[in-house]
């Protein structure tokens, strides 16, 4: 087990370097140096060369890459010349709120998807099951921002229960936590996107398990249906969810971006969006790499967690 984890960690490390290399190369092709953003578009070639020399942008590409990589290892993601702050500081400021949004949405989606999937499997092929399946399928095919718009229309503009966007006064993670009404619509939107895929898997997993002998045994020995479902089925049917949560990192990263833009919620997604408009390549580079690292970590943690939770999974 420990050998397995170590081997996976080494592979993950190599993949991370690969991610950094590919992203760095692509963005470097698009913008070799932020010099024009700093000195202005009409700056003199001599000044450009001097600035590039002073900031190390005249070195060969591989050298720049190696120093960038070395910087990442010390959590130094470069400098945003548009926002005049180090990227790390910007991340530190915004990551908490984004993590809270993702985390709350993830927890909520599990709370909805697990019982929903099991209920659908137990009452399979009924009107309720078909309705839920159809709804899930529609949600699955719906862009998250459009779902958000519908929720804004319904809950904010028609019913006036929740605000249509997150207020600018929420500038800290603690502020986000203590203002649940402000965060309600963004969290629900992001959660529903995940529910669509989670409950689909939960349903089929529960269906598989319901057909197995241990369920029949539990029923045969006279356990109440409640005990069968909650003590036996729930735990076994939820196993695939571990993998799904691990794989949901890219969805959450992308979802955060769109939801934060839609609801004007200050987080790394909105930071990334602003950087796209500003051509602030150091932020774009750093966040893309960070998303890649999180994806790799998500996969890794899911694989380790499933072996802990499910003794049938054997590792070499």
């Amino acid at each position: 087990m420990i050998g397995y984890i170590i081997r996976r960690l080494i592979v993950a490390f190599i993949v991370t370097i690969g991610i950094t290399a590919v992203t760095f190369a692509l963005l470097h092709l698009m913008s070799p140096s932020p010099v024009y953003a700093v000195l202005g578009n009409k700056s003199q070639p001599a000044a450009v060369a001097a600035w590039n020399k002073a900031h190390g942008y005249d070195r060969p590409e591989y050298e720049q890459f190696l120093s960038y990589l070395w910087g990442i290892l010390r959590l130094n993601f470069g400098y945003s010349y548009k926002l005049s702050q180090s990227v790390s500081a910007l991340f530190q400021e915004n990551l908490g709120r984004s993590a809270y949004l993702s985390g709350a949405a993830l927890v909520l989606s599990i709370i909805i998807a697990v019982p929903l999937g099991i209920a659908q499997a137990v009452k399979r092929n009924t009107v309720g099951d078909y309705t839920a399946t159809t709804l899930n399928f529609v949600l699955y095919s719906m862009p998250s921002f459009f779902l958000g718009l519908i929720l804004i229309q319904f809950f904010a503009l028609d019913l006036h229960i929740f605000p249509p966007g997150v207020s600018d006064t929420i500038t800290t993670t603690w502020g986000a936590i203590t203002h649940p009404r402000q965060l309600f619509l963004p969290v629900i939107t992001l959660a529903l996107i995940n529910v669509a895929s989670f409950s689909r898997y939960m349903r089929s997993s529960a269906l598989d398990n319901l057909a197995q002998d241990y369920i029949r045994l539990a029923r045969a020995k006279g356990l109440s249906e409640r005990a069968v479902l909650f003590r036996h089925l729930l735990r076994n049917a939820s196993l695939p969810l571990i993998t799904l949560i691990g794989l949901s990192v890219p969805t959450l990263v992308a979802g955060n971006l769109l939801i934060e833009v839609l609801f004007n919620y200050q987080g790394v997604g909105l930071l990334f969006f602003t950087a796209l408009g500003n051509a602030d390549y150091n932020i774009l580079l750093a966040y893309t790499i960070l998303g890649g690292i999180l994806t790799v970590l998500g996969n890794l943690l899911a694989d380790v967690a499933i072996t802990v939770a499910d003794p049938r999974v054997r590792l070499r």
Partner: protein
Amino acid sequence: MTDPTRPIVEGEAAPVGGGFGVALDLPSGHDGAAPEGGEVQAIQSGWRLAVREYFDNRLAVIGLVVLIFFVLFSFVGPIIHPTNQTLTEPLSTDLAPGGAHLLGTDGNGFDELGRIMKGGQAALEVGFLAALIATIVGTLYGAIAGLVGGVVDGIMMRFVDVLLSIPYLLIVLVLATKYSSNVLNISVVLAAFSWLVPARLVRGEVLSLRVRDFVHACRVMGGGSTRIVYRHLIPNALSVVIVNITFLIADSILALSYLGFLGFGLQYPATSWGDMLGNAQQNVSAGYWWLVYPVGGCLVAVVLAVNLIGDALRDALDVRLRRR
């Protein structure tokens, strides 16, 4: 000699699938040396089974009908309902539906219905083009990796692993800020990061197919690698690829809508459904519902239709799931 590769799915399930039918249909119960006519029948019956399976699925038929409707709506619609989509009309902006404008006008005074048709063209073009490019690249890449095997396969697939770990939307957005201006560019950008899944799928198929007897037979008879890839492995992996194409189309249409919504889509005056939803928040707040829900509805309907088709194709082409 016979070419046992064409009947994609029934090759695996000869006892239950097409092979069974052939044995009954053939006048003389030949084994491998079946006459040419019998061979053709075997191919047709396999595909025909899949087609029948597909059309037995009510949702699949609905999906196909909706998709065909949107193809006609987007490409033939503008001929039936010609609208001005080039000159802004500042005096007739944000008009409510009615009169000459069935779905009202947008903030530039463009007829909304005509604009939805125009956006539909972009969605369908980008969806199909991106999926096509990604599939061709991914299929060749995966087939080569699976066939060559060894260290080359290892390196090729680690590269795919790396690219797959980069969040798709982020990297596509970054590339789109500079390279997305027309349908072709945007399709290439989307395809640049969506050929990975087909590559993996095809490689997996090839790995399992290359050790099958008919590939050995081909090699023994002197067939080269090129022949094996093009004549045997790719046709046999086709069902997996076809199913994946539909999901790629759906994903590409969604990705295009994200790019458009965030403001990095097609260049004005071209438009996509995502572009049209770019300032949907203001439109919703202002009560201009006709600028939000018809477009969004079309977007969801097309993606839903393509997803339904994909699900049904998977059921129809996978013999293991086949009910007959």
